[in-house]
């Protein structure tokens, strides 16, 4: 037999007991050819373009799933940031666009659609302001639409006016979805240095530099890495890094193979593999468990940032070799609600917001799926965003904030979102005010990169 039985059994075990799957096959669709000054025609155009490009996405992905026996958890679509193509529309018009996107998503049977987005890192146009004002209602009225706003880049600094606005927008979004614990906020991300080809939600959008239609893939394999590390007998950290690299290689190869086959069958260009370890709420499929497997009593204790730095780097090294094109967010994710180990660490009292913030300086992507008390003020949320944006801006990396001020909830309570979004324990924030800082507005200037010129 050309393939060794041990290799066959290893692959099967990864899928069967270690939750290896392809987290998402995401089709990026350019909507710039749908621009029209009249809203009803605009909506018809984007609906038709999405259905035309992606009507076969789900069935094709399912065929590939069957062929290879590797589950593909989500099929998604990302579109050109709507604020970049919207005309002089009203807030109600933008809400109708979100509805149109949601209808198109349901029609083609995908799980999520991202791109109700605006890029405002240096300033906001009236169109972008109107879109942002429509976000709370747009997310409350739709199921599958995801929204993101880029408020900072390393090259242009942080738009603190936008940061202040997003604090209010997040609060309003939570209020409008209060009966579901503020689930609207789980579909809203604030970015620094947002990538144009990210397949992961809620932050996926189809960037301006992208082709008309493209397939991007995100893999999920914390359970496999976790199992591989736990099998080692008294390893040193070099051996752990080596094992993570090898495992990341194998996981990424699956993503590459599936992505290429889906794109070939659809006749659509293959974009990138996102080398991220995306956890799921399943036990063991957890980034926190990997860190604990390295020797930490509980995730969040001293040493967590170092262990995460090792993990994140090793995943990239292994994955980069496995794929011809790497992009997106590419790094270990630490979403609290979607990772059983992170939830346990918060409940145990070993992991708090301050440590999570420190961890985001060495990994992808940021403060992700974090529930805070419902009475957290908009300015405190803005200040949390500003801190995270500063980490991204200074470190020339993508950072993001996806935070849920769960209406009526207090520290220690639990917020249930269900499915891949999981369960979030409500975490405490500082009781001291940041209001005056946020009120000042303006921009934080871009950091100096080098004095080489």
């Amino acid at each position, binding site marked *: *037999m050309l*393939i060794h039985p041990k*290799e*066959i059994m290893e692959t099967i075990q990864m899928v069967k007991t270690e939750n290896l799957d392809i987290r998402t096959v995401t089709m990026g669709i350019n909507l710039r050819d749908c621009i029209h000054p009249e809203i009803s025609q605009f909506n018809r155009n984007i609906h038709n373009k999405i259905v035309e490009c992606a009507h076969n996405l789900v069935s094709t992905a399912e065929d590939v799933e*069957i062929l290879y*026996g590797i589950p593909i958890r989500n099929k998604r679509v990302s579109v050109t940031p709507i604020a970049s193509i919207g005309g002089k529309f009203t807030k109600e018009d933008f809400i109708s666009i979100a509805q149109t996107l949601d209808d198109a998503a349901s029609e083609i049977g995908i799980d999520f659609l991202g791109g109700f987005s605006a890029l405002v890192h240096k300033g906001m146009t009236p169109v972008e302001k109107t879109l942002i004002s429509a976000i709370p209602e747009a997310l409350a009225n739709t199921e599958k639409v995801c929204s993101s706003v880029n408020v900072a880049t390393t090259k242009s600094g942080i738009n603190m006016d936008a940061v202040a606005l997003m604090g209010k927008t997040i609060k309003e979004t939570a209020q409008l979805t209060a009966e579901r614990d503020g689930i609207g906020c789980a579909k809203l991300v604030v970015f620094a240095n947002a990538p144009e080809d990210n397949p992961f939600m809620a932050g996926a959008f189809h960037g301006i530099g992208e082709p008309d239609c493209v397939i991007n893939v995100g893999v999920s394999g914390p359970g496999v890495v976790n199992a591989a590390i736990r099998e080692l007998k008294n390893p040193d950290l070099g051996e752990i890094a080596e094992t993570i690299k090898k495992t990341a290689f194998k996981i990424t190869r699956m993503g590459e*193979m599936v992505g290429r086959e889906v794109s070939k069958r659809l006749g659509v260009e293959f974009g990138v593999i996102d080398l991220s370890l995306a956890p799921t709420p399943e036990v063991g499929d957890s980034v926190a468990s990997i860190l604990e497997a390295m020797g930490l009593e509980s995730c969040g204790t001293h040493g967590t940032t170092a262990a995460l730095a090792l993990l994140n780097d090793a995943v990239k090294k292994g994955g980069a070799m496995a794929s011809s094109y790497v992009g997106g967010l590419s790094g270990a994710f630490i979403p609290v609600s979607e990772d059983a180990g992170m939830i346990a660490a918060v409940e145990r009292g070993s992991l708090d917001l301050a440590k999570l913030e420190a961890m985001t300086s060495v990994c992808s992507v940021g403060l992700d799926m974090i529930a805070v008390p419902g009475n957290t003020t908009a300015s405190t949320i803005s200040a949390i965003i500003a801190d995270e944006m500063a980490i991204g801006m200074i470190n020339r990396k993508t950072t993001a904030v996806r935070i849920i001020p769960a209406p009526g909830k207090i520290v220690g309570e639990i917020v249930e979102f269900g499915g891949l979004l999981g369960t979030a324990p409500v975490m405490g924030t500082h009781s001291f005010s940041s209001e005056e800082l946020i009120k000042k507005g303006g921009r934080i200037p871009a950091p100096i990169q080098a004095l080489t010129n």
Partner: protein
Amino acid sequence: MTSTRFIITVIGIDKIGIVAKVTGIMAEYSVNIVDISQTIMEDLFTMIMLAEAKGDNFDMNDFQNTMQDAGEKLGVDIRVQHEDVFRFMHRI
């Protein structure tokens, strides 16, 4: 896809008739065995077959479903996967 070959794995508690049932279904679907190996791994009966579909109208999905049903009746886990999965993951 570079070939029409796939790997069939049967894992579970050993009992009489597993091989007969599995190969019987293969014959029904005109699927040829290219290579076969059978071992007991960690107390489990493990059969791995490299197989090739010979029929023109071979329906992978239907074949998989039939195999899965048979697996459930036999109390074993049967998977049918294109061989590229294993080649791609482990070989450069």
